[in-house]
């Protein structure tokens, strides 16, 4: 059974068909890239999967259950986490608290425990702290735990976003341009990082990316969108030579030099 199964998904904004008849199946453990020119509707697909937008039509099945129409926090609790194209950290909170906040739905103490700092509160807080620090250590952020999130350098902020999304224990991770604005060295480190967390946390990964180096290296399969529709799917090698894709990116008449 596929982890994620999207059928005939569409989203209209007034007369604009931002996503039209979008199909996607993700098998467990896959890394799939979603690419396409700017404005193709890639981020809209992410917003539909995570519940920010309610689809105009179609269905999204996650782990065999329909999730479209659920509020975002429920979808996250079921096991889909994401990062954002333009980083959206809890800026003024500490790096540690950015991660700890996401543990919230799985915290096993109630409001009264919190007010009275009961033994259950202490035990849970210790567990959350230990697990958060472990997660930060995995992403090489442990020594920054006490800093404000907004004070981190750009690359660290990107990694903190990933750490934060992992804190929700996702099965499916959606990465929205994780390597945007990075130089080739940083991109290759990001490729290694995504591979590492995929193995370590048993993830299925869907990623949007413009950095072709990253996409070609990392993804087993690519889905290419243009004007809200899928125009091609296939392995990176197939996509590289697909004339339809080249036309979408470069215009008619383009050839590979």
């Amino acid at each position: 059974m596929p982890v994620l199964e999207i059928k005939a998904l569409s989203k209209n904004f007034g007369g604009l068909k931002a996503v039209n008849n979008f199909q996607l199946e993700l098998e467990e453990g896959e890394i799939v890239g979603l690419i396409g020119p700017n404005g193709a509707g890639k981020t809209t697909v992410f917003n539909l999967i995570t519940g920010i937008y309610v689809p105009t039509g179609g269905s999204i099945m996650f782990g065999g259950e329909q999730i479209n129409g659920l509020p975002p926090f429920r979808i996250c609790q079921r096991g889909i986490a994401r990062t954002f194209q333009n980083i959206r950290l809890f800026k003024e909170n500490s790096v540690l608290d950015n991660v700890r906040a996401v543990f919230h739905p799985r915290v096993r103490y109630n409001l009264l425990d919190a007010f009275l700092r009961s033994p259950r509160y202490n035990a849970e807080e210790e567990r959350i702290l230990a697990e958060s620090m472990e997660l930060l250590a995995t992403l090489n952020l442990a020594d920054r735990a006490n800093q404000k999130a907004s004070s981190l350098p750009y690359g660290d902020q990107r990694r903190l976003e990933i750490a934060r999304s992992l804190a929700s224990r996702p099965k499916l991770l959606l990465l929205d341009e994780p390597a945007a604005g990075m130089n080739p060295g940083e991109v290759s480190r990001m490729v290694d990082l995504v591979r590492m967390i995929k193995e370590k946390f048993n993830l299925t990964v869907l990623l949007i990316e413009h950095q072709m180096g990253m996409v070609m290296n990392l993804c087993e399969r690519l889905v290419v969108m243009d004007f809200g529709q899928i125009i091609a799917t296939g392995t990176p090698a197939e996509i590289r030579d697909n004339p339809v894709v080249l036309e979408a990116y470069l215009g008619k008449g383009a050839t590979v030099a």
Partner: protein
Amino acid sequence: MKISRQTIILLILAAVFYALVKCLQLTGVLSQYWQLVLDQALVTVIGALGLSLIYGFTGQFSLGHAAFYGLGAYTAGVIDKVYGNGSILFFFISILAGALLAGLVALIIGLPILRLRSDYLGIATLGFGIIVRVGMENANKVIPVLGGATGMSGTPQTANFDLIFVLVLVVILLVRNFIFSTYGRACTSIREDEIAADLMGIDTTRYKVLSFVLGCALAGLAGGIYAHRYPFLHPASFDFLKSFDFLLIVVLGGLGSMTGTIFTAIGWGFLLEVLRAVLGENFIDWRGVIYALILIVAIILRPQGLFSGKELGLLLPRPLPLTTTSGKERTHAGTGN
């Protein structure tokens, strides 16, 4: 139950403060008048911490805090006046009833409005404040004992410095425990980025409502205590200007800082009385001008508030045992926008 070192130091400092006030009382330095000012400043601390929770920590803008304060005051006042006998038991029953009613009303208002994002709460609470004020002015037509526009008196003056001081301390500890728990982290993440919090599995509506209800219940509690320390309740004491007082305290103290709220609430109470002493009868007329001036100067000199996002170490959880700390800043609940 483990009591942290921070809590113990906090309690010791509180005891020192208490002893100091007692000394001033015994030596006669602290007159009854200034004692009343201090007591009311402490009551304001409780109410302001409520707004701090709502606005400073959860980022929800409320313009009607005094309405909840007034609801608590009238509820507690009338319960103790009609049924009470001046005993401490009725003091507690009535202030808890005041807090509960304020919390309940906040729940009824908050549930529909806090589903929405951004500033709708500000508009709704502004309207609610006006409704409450008008309701208080005409309340005697339904329940004569409430006194309406002429005000209400006759509530037993059970509260004294000792009682108020203990209550303030308890509230500070409870609010601190809330903020440095998973609930507090849910609230601050909503303040920082509501959409991101939602996408990270936090039921944003629920925690906005929770913090609004808790904050308003604290306002109700403060109101109830006020009714037991100031013999005369009048609708004008709970109007928009009073809401503005709370807002000013929270913003001036720095959003997201309990320390700031506490010190500013006390300082604000004394500042107003000093101004009243200096300006005499002109004070009422000049009040609006002075408020505006203080705000303008504060925004120019220190837009982030006095304690923006910083807390006294005593209020913080134990610092992390990190091997390397490259940042100067310590863990705190952060500032507002």
